[in-house]
């Protein structure tokens, strides 16, 4: 009944839109914020909001082990500041239990974090809602492979969405 109501052009448009959605969802974390990483959480949480490229993942910075909940500090190049202020192009951001999907990272100790990112990979672009300094928001083990390299405050990742590979 519906098909008969569509004209030929309409069907082509519908197929194109469907394929577009499939392509987008294949390349990202699984939410609705493809390409820009925008969603109601990332634009409202934290005091700072940036789009930034994950520079690298140092060896041993992300691991999964029994007993150890931890935060890893990752290095980013800031592409755009949406809210708040950051100093310089490079920022250091702490992600809690980075071996987990952001949507599954919150727990009894850290209750208020999330996002649609499935897996951290060097080169990805993330849209993030942040707080600083990290010590005001997280009390636990921190793996910081950049220890001593910067005196700037370390940011705490509240919400992390994928905004591009």
């Amino acid at each position, binding site marked *: 009944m519906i098909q008969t109501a569509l004209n030929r052009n309409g069907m082509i448009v519908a197929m194109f839109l469907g394929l577009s959605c499939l392509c987008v969802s294949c390349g990202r974390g699984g939410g609705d914020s493809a390409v820009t990483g925008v969603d109601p959480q990332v634009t409202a949480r934290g005091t700072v909001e940036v789009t930034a490229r994950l520079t690298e993942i140092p060896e041993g910075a992300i691991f999964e*082990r*029994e*007993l*150890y*909940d*931890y*935060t890893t500090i990752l290095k980013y190049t800031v592409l755009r500041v949406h809210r708040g202020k950051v100093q310089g192009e490079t920022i250091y951001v702490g992600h809690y239990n980075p071996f987990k999907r952001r949507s599954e990272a919150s727990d*009894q*100790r850290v209750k208020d974090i999330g996002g649609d990112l499935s897996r951290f990979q060097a080169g990805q672009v993330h849209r993030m809602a942040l707080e600083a300094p990290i*010590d*005001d*928001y*997280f*009390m*636990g*083990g*921190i*793996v*910081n*492979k950049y*220890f*001593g390299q910067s005196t700037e405050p370390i940011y705490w990742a509240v919400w992390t969405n994928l905004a591009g590979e």
Partner: protein
Amino acid sequence: MKRATVVLVSSLFFSPMPGRGMPASSEAELAREVRGKGWIAFAAHSSLGDWDIFVARPDGSDIRNLTNTPASNEASPQFSRDGRKLLYRRLAGGEKIDDNRHGEQGALVMANSNGTEATVLGQPGEYPWPSLSPDATKISCLSIKGVFLVDLGSMKTLNTLPRKGFFQQLAWSPDGRWLSGVANSYGTGWSVARMNIATGETSAVNRVDCCTPDWFPDSRNLIFSWRPPGQGTNKGYGWTQLWRADAEGKTRQLVYAEDGRHVYGGHVSPDGLYVLFTGNMKEDGDPGNAGAPMALMRLADAPIIGGESPAVRKLNPGAKNGPVLKLPQGWEPCWTFSETPGNRPGRTGVDSPDSRPWSRGLQPLRGSR
């Protein structure tokens, strides 16, 4: 009759056993040596399955349940230095003890060290990670907002210090000048560090994968657990071992290690001659289950390696095999030379830590086989 049963159970499960190449007489001699040296306190499962605070002689005999609270769980006991007071946390019955959050779970309780006159100090979650001052007039606490020194008479905060990365397990030094704790401010999580209470300055004692620091009586040395890198066992992570170091972090020494055992919760005796510790039989088996066999050894016998442990023996060829005294199943014990914990009006030895987990397949301390 009940007392007779307790004694029988105690002798079956908690008597000294010979170690690897170690005659039974060595453990028996160690047991005799420590039996009269006050009391140890520890958390353990009662026969009803809840966590209670127990005391026992340091050789594991004469076990007594101090709290007997089936509707709640008690853990993290801490004697005052004079042995007259006991600090612990009381959790609601349904709340599971979390190995990484136990210091902030439940409400803080102060009692006489024989369990009488237990008083709840504040609401659940209040006064996190407490440690008694040497004179037991204050506690230090640790929250995300800083380190707080609280007067126990008024429960008012006397001083606040930046926590500088400290995040767990504060311990106040016997000389009153220092706090030790687990810190994340040295490039890695789980460093052991100390903080000068007068200045707030901090310094690392040992870095990477350390926890449960506690002071020697001289306030110049610490006992702590550490997972040294390069062990090659346990999927490449190795096992957590008991170590000691001077408080400036210049020298350190292995105290006890055993492949297959997560050794931690070290507590040095008041005379500095012995150490108590806990040891998971799997990575996270103590608070989540029912504890694990605790143990006691002479510090003069260190380093000791338990079980076969070929990898760790290769790294420590001069280590001894024992003697190590196997103690009741429990969690994070502490020790006082005071006789007060055993002097409770109207009570004798009652109840015992639940032996069921033992019979369900947990292995006895391997170094004590």
